[in-house]
């Protein structure tokens, strides 16, 4: 592919010169800070003397044994999974409905679904806090129907609603991309051959959309598990998730080593899940190619 260029320029010098500055930037501002954070997570912290430059597993032991931290990790995992499942249940049918739409409507509604990506997460979360608040619009609507108000804001329900809203575009986009590439005549053929609508969906559309669903769930899970603004604004002071916990340790408790430990655990969990998912997706892709 690069035969012409490499014949003219020295093989190694040119790419080195071209990518060198960016490589240095990323070593200095991604790899180095990450390494420093890993080191920080093995330092101990003293409330009077500050960060000690020793080596200890104490932070990891604390985080993995203490009831408070464990319950926060458990909540993070649970809510991220729940969000992923709900976004699949809403996002996949929605992508299918979108792909079945006629010309002008299809692009208009695709904009409606993915356009909110351009609106700040803080703005959208603030919107939900108004809808779900004690005197919010959901409760006003309930009062009109004659029902008692419910506590929604500062509950796990509120966090999941907010997360699903933020994450839905990340599910619709990959599924939509896959559905675009499908040959619509195959589904039509199944229907002509007497398959019910449901069978055609289950046997033809769903298996082909599986790759899109997998990569969508990967993104949604990863982003939900490390989301900050939503648990921060909709979970209140009591309901912490991993990201708000790290924020507290760093900027309120000032126990940086413990905060770094939680951040590293989030990072490692993220990478492990990504790798596992990637292998799953590769296996799926291979099976599809035969």
């Amino acid at each position, binding site marked *: 592919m690069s035969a012409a*260029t490499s014949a003219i*320029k020295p093989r190694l010098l040119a790419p080195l010169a071209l990518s060198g500055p960016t490589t240095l930037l*990323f070593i200095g501002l991604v790899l180095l800070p990450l390494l420093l954070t890993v080191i920080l997570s093995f330092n101990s912290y003293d409330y009077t003397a500050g960060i000690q430059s020793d080596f200890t597993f104490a932070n990891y032991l604390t985080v993995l044994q203490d009831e408070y931290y464990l319950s926060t990790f458990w909540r993070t995992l649970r809510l991220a999974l729940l969000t992923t499942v709900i976004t699949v249940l809403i996002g996949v049918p929605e992508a299918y409905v979108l792909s079945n739409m006629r010309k002008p409507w299809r692009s208009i509604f695709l904009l*409606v679904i*993915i356009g909110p990506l351009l609106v700040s997460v803080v703005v*959208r979360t603030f919107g939900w806090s108004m809808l779900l608040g004690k005197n919010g619009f959901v409760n006003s609507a309930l009062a009109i129907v004659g029902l008692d108000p419910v506590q929604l804001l500062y509950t796990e329900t509120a966090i999941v609603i907010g997360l699903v809203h933020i994450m839905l575009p990340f599910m619709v986009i990959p599924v939509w991309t896959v559905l675009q590439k499908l040959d619509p005549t195959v589904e039509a053929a199944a229907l002509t051959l007497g398959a019910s609508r449901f069978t055609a969906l289950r046997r033809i559309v769903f298996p082909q959309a599986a790759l899109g669903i997998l990569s969508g769930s990967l993104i949604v899970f990863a982003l939900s598990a*490390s989301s*900050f*603004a939503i648990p921060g604004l909709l979970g209140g002071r009591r309901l912490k998730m991993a990201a708000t916990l790290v924020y507290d340790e760093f900027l309120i408790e000032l126990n940086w080593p413990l905060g770094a430990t939680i951040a590293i655990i989030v990072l490692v969990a993220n990478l492990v899940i990504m790798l596992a998912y990637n292998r799953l997706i590769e296996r799926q892709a291979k099976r599809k190619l035969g």
Partner: protein
Amino acid sequence: MQRNGPIALAFHSLVVVFMLAPMVVVCLVAFTPENTLAMPWNGLSLRWFEAVFQHADFMSSFGNSVRLALLSATISTVFAVPAALAITRYEFRGRDALNALFLSPLIIPHLVLGVAFLRLFSLMGMGGSFAWLVATHAIVVTPYTLRLILASLTSMDRNAENAARTLGAAEWTVFRRITMPLMLPGISGGWLLAFINSFDELTMSIFVTSPSTVTLPVRMYMYASESIDPMMAAVSTLMIALATVTMIILDRLFGLDRLLVGKG
């Protein structure tokens, strides 16, 4: 292609309402004449928009965010163009690793990046300056610029470059007259995505901003977690208006689906 039945359309309407509800409510409440977050049943008022423009903190944060997004998107593009050329035009050892490194800010949670930058700057004794904030944002938005530039480089017709060479053009002329113009849609699309992502970034910024460099999302987050008055709704409405204008421009220029869905 199947037609959507009534159940499918009812489901679709619910999804659309769900996606738009928080933004519609924010925009309505922003026009309230009351002191609380109430719907403007008793007439409309612009008093909360006035309050925003007289609020020194919000205005300075808005300025910070615009300057930050302009600078970091531009710097990221300047770094991403040669990197993309190296990755697409040359075979060399470690090429895949390099590509993965440049795209890694997409995989590393912003929370972790924020913590890592905070640690680096505190060790260097250089926290809180605007220049460092720009550097962190340039890192975070580089995957967006790089991906679109890579896409434009791999999809372009290499024969045009080879034809120019055969006709005796020097390497630099080939780049300036052929490669660069063909890269331009990727560069501008990537720059815009980078600008938007920098402008909206919260999770990392909250760790690396100082009182004098607070960005608009960070300011809004802090404001929303302390007090809830209609001014927050007014700021949010302005942000939604800005995003809508951006969305229309992006859609006209590139097609939003292509840009965000990533076939561009």
